[in-house]
């Protein structure tokens, strides 16, 4: 009996070997297949990171391993860039979520025109921050359409200042990041089984209750993803903070501080340290957001089979 079984097993193994699928060979093959991706990640991501980290720990001005970091945190003007950046990135991210969540919910089942509307919302992504900043400069400028219209309608006498300050940067970041947030949320909300809402409705839930009790909780994973992505991208704000804000004052963002260190003071070591600090803050926020997400519901968004 046992012998018979053994011979069956070895026959199967032989058959596999003949067919060229022996286990060790398959492993080797799959390693070879992922090699290009691994090399690319190493070259484009890991190497610069390690290089930058090393550079930041070798201060040009001397003073020991962590001198660059110590300088950054002891200099009030440098330290303030973290806060300056957060004050731009957080409002822009939350404004986007506040607009995109109800909008994605509204668009979850519109069949006609959905593609067109989605397309319109996505256009800002193709423009790039510089073009958006240029447009805003002329639109919101003292002689731009915005203030001309307000004056014409006698709503204001003095032009409203929406550029060269924090507000301008927040507006431009909101416009630039909205498509990403919206598309992520639309994807998540479209994946929610429409029968769940119908079931809630049959159980007596009003429109708001269905959104609040069923849709919103099921959108949490999408909201966390959108929040994390939007935050990371807005935290790295640079062109719009310079063009639309006050790069010497309230919109002196952390990326600008790094740029000044590198190209005004030519201290690449200090610039690397600032970049590492920037990355650390982003990773920290990502960890908090994704950690919170994993503690909330993250299962399927359908209510059963089919």
């Amino acid at each position, binding site marked *: 009996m046992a012998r018979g079984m053994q011979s069956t097993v070895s026959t199967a193994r032989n058959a596999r070997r003949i067919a060229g699928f022996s286990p060790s060979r398959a492993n080797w093959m799959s390693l070879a297949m992922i090699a290009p991706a691994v090399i690319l990640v190493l070259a484009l991501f890991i190497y610069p990171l390690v290089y930058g980290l090393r550079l930041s720990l070798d201060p040009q001005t001397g003073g020991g391993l962590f001198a660059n970091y110590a300088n950054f945190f002891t200099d009030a003007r440098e330290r303030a860039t973290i806060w300056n950046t957060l004050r731009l990135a957080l409002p822009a991210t939350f404004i986007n979520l506040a607009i995109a969540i109800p909008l994605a919910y509204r668009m979850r089942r519109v069949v006609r025109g959905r593609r067109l509307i989605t397309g319109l919302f996505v256009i800002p992504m193709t423009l790039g921050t510089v073009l958006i900043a240029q447009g805003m400069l002329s639109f919101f400028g003292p002689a731009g359409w915005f203030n001309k219209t307000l004056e014409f309608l006698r709503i204001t006498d003095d032009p409203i200042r929406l550029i060269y300050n924090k507000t301008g940067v927040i507006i431009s970041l909101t416009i630039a990041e909205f498509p990403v947030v919206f598309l992520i949320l639309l994807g998540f909300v479209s994946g929610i*089984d429409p*029968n*769940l809402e*119908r*079931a*809630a*409705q*049959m*159980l*007596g*839930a*009003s429109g708001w*209750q269905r959104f609040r*009790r*069923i849709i919103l*909780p*099921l959108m949490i994973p999408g909201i966390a993803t959108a929040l994390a992505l939007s935050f990371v991208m807005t935290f790295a704000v640079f062109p719009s903070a310079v063009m639309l804000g006050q790069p010497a004052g309230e919109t002196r963002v952390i990326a600008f501080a790094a740029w000044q260190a590198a190209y005004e003071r030519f201290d690449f070591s200090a610039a690397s340290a600032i970049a590492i600090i920037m990355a650390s803050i982003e990773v920290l926020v990502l960890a908090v957001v994704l950690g919170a997400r994993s503690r909330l*519901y993250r*299962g*399927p*968004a*359908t*209510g*059963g*089979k*089919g």
Partner: protein
Amino acid sequence: MTAQAKADQSLAEPSRGVAPGRPAPRIERLRIRNLTKRFGDLAALREFDLDVRGGEFISLLGPSGCGKTTALNCIAGLLDPDGGEIELDGTNVVNTPPERRRFGMVFQNYALFPHLSVRRNVAFGLEMQRIPKSEIGERVDRALRLVRLEEHRDKHPAQLSGGQQQRIAIARAVVTEPRLMLMDEPLSNLDGKLRMEMRTEIRRLHQALGLTTIYVTHDQEEALSLSDRVVLMEHGVVRQMGTPREVYHEPASAYAASFLGSRNLLPVRVTGLEGSLARIEAPSGISLTGSLRGELAVGDDAIAAIRPENVMLLASDQGGPNTLTGQVQAVEFLGQGTELSVSCELAENIIVRTTEDTWAYGDQVALRFPEDRLFVFPAEPVEG
């Protein structure tokens, strides 16, 4: 409920009997008139009429696209009908939004809220009604006991099997004490054995709770076994309505016959009429006698229908009225019987069901078509 209505109900179907402890239904009458729904050019539901007594179990039966689900969604309020009335004890509810109709609904894919525990799923409807917490707990426990899943109350839907999920969905609907229970193919996602168990479960719950129920299915067995009355639909129109025994034994059309198990449908021509009997001729020239169903005149095209179990299988040397000889082309053993495919002068493929298991491929046999079992219907296009 008035005494009269109660009397009506208990008289209606003495064979089933009303369980002694069965609670009174929450409505007395649902009256649907002229319900119509179009999707673009397609008339999904045409002048749909239905009267349901409180406590009754009605099945809407038909193939996909026959309008049964459209009818159910219109009754639920999830679809806006283009016209018609849905009267519940004299009040038209067509303009009442679904969340205020107080109907329960069970979906084909269960539609349990995946982020809520079993207990919270079942409690959802009661929370929407702002019922006090203590009462909610009590009623949820009772509903879970009813579907025998009380030990799973803290799990999430994804941790349960399909059958368990559907029982939770039923508990979630019944716990709110709906005025009307709507079920949209609740068993079609389950596999064979489970399906039978759940069918019994639904019947048991209906007996125990007396919920007025409208049940949508494409499965004739489900419809026959569960319902007080079956509504057979096709292309948005009601084709026949009656008790399971009526629609089974007395199909009103070739369509009804084909949907309720007459798998042998033969195009024929009427050559003679004699009282309730019709003389018919097959394209091959063979003549038979069948029972007339519907308006037919001599010379009309007709369809002769007979169930596999009603064809009598005889030894090949036996003759007699309405009897033809043939040859067995295929034998299928089904456990409680055997199904043969027999070719004869009438048709290439007559399906015969027999309890004997002595037949083999190539056997010569004689087939007798009892004239009271061979129905002759006016011709109409019939789709599987």
